[in-house]
């Protein structure tokens, strides 16, 4: 019955636990204020009207092949699965491919409640996604923590740890609502300037 706990690894498991605790405390301490939504470049676009055919092509390509990363911490995932199924058929919008590797994804749909224990991992998935990348906060928990907002271990909104582009309310949102949110995001992407440098994104506390 003897189980050898944590001895077969390179790192001592107690050290790993303490490290994890420090990471979570740091993330929590650095997440008091919501990260502003990354739409400063929309304003920029309005000032310098410079629409090129390259922009049009690149934006069209980007918005027509949004590949979501598989990162669904809670129950809104089922609504996403429904949206991805044959009845609602997300493939119509070019996003039927769910990417298990965040390195091949450019959209994160934050479906569900996020606990602080899980937060560093979600943050890490986001950091591993290549630019340009977008985030849809799906559901009440994704927007503000929902009914769990006052809990001791729930992140009060994904925008505390990630910059969020589109918020889709609901508990959970219907697949139609999610599809509408995705269409809004596609409209937003259509306005992006692919050619000039994007303005500097807000500073995000690094882990």
């Amino acid at each position, binding site marked *: 019955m003897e*189980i050898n706990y944590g001895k077969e690894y390179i790192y001592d498991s107690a050290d790993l636990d303490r490290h994890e605790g420090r990471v*979570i405390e740091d993330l929590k301490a650095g997440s008091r204020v919501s990260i502003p939504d990354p739409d400063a470049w929309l304003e920029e676009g309005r000032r310098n009207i410079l629409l090129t055919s390259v922009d049009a092509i690149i934006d069209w390509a980007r918005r027509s092949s949004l590949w979501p990363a598989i990162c669904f911490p809670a129950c809104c995932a089922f609504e996403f699965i429904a949206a991805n199924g044959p009845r609602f058929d997300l493939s119509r919008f070019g996003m039927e491919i769910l990417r298990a590797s965040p390195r091949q994804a450019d959209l994160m749909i934050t479906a569900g409640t996020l606990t*602080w224990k899980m937060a560093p991992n979600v943050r890490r998935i986001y950091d591993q996604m290549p630019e340009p990348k977008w985030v849809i906060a799906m559901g009440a928990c994704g927007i503000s923590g929902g009914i769990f907002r006052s*809990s*001791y271990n729930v992140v009060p909104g994904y925008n505390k740890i990630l910059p969020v582009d589109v918020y889709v309310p609901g508990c959970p949102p219907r697949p139609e609502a999610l599809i509408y949110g995705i269409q809004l995001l596609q409209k937003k992407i259509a306005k992006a300037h692919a050619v000039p440098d994007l303005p500097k994104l807000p500073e995000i506390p690094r882990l």
Partner: protein
Amino acid sequence: MTVALPAGEIAGKLETKFPGCFEEGGKDNLLVKADSLLDVAAFLKDQPDLKFDYLNYVTAVDYYAYFEIVYQLTSLEHNRSIVFRTRAYGRDNPTMPSVTGLWRGADFQEREIFDLFGVAFTGHPNLKRIFLWEGFQGHPLRKDWNG
């Protein structure tokens, strides 16, 4: 359907085998003293006519004056189940013997109780927080916890 074993049926047997193993007035609902918990648990597990070989759950309740640890066992052989309880006194450092040596499944559940109630299980092979992170202050399921 698994039948719940009446407490009266087993209490007399335990009382004769381990005199004084029950708390005051605890004979009717199998409220075992923490000192004799391991003896009683081993007896329930190993006795051929009881053979409670499966631990359904370990959980805890905060009653301010003490923490009550609740165990439910099932005998897969006799198709019987039983619930018995113990008390861990004190709020600063309540302790309770671990039953992981008898039922391996108690491992994570005792860690959960340790995490959320702060009851330390002596003899547990890997007693550390399971849901919350290292460095979290307090134990959230305690009645007097304010987060």
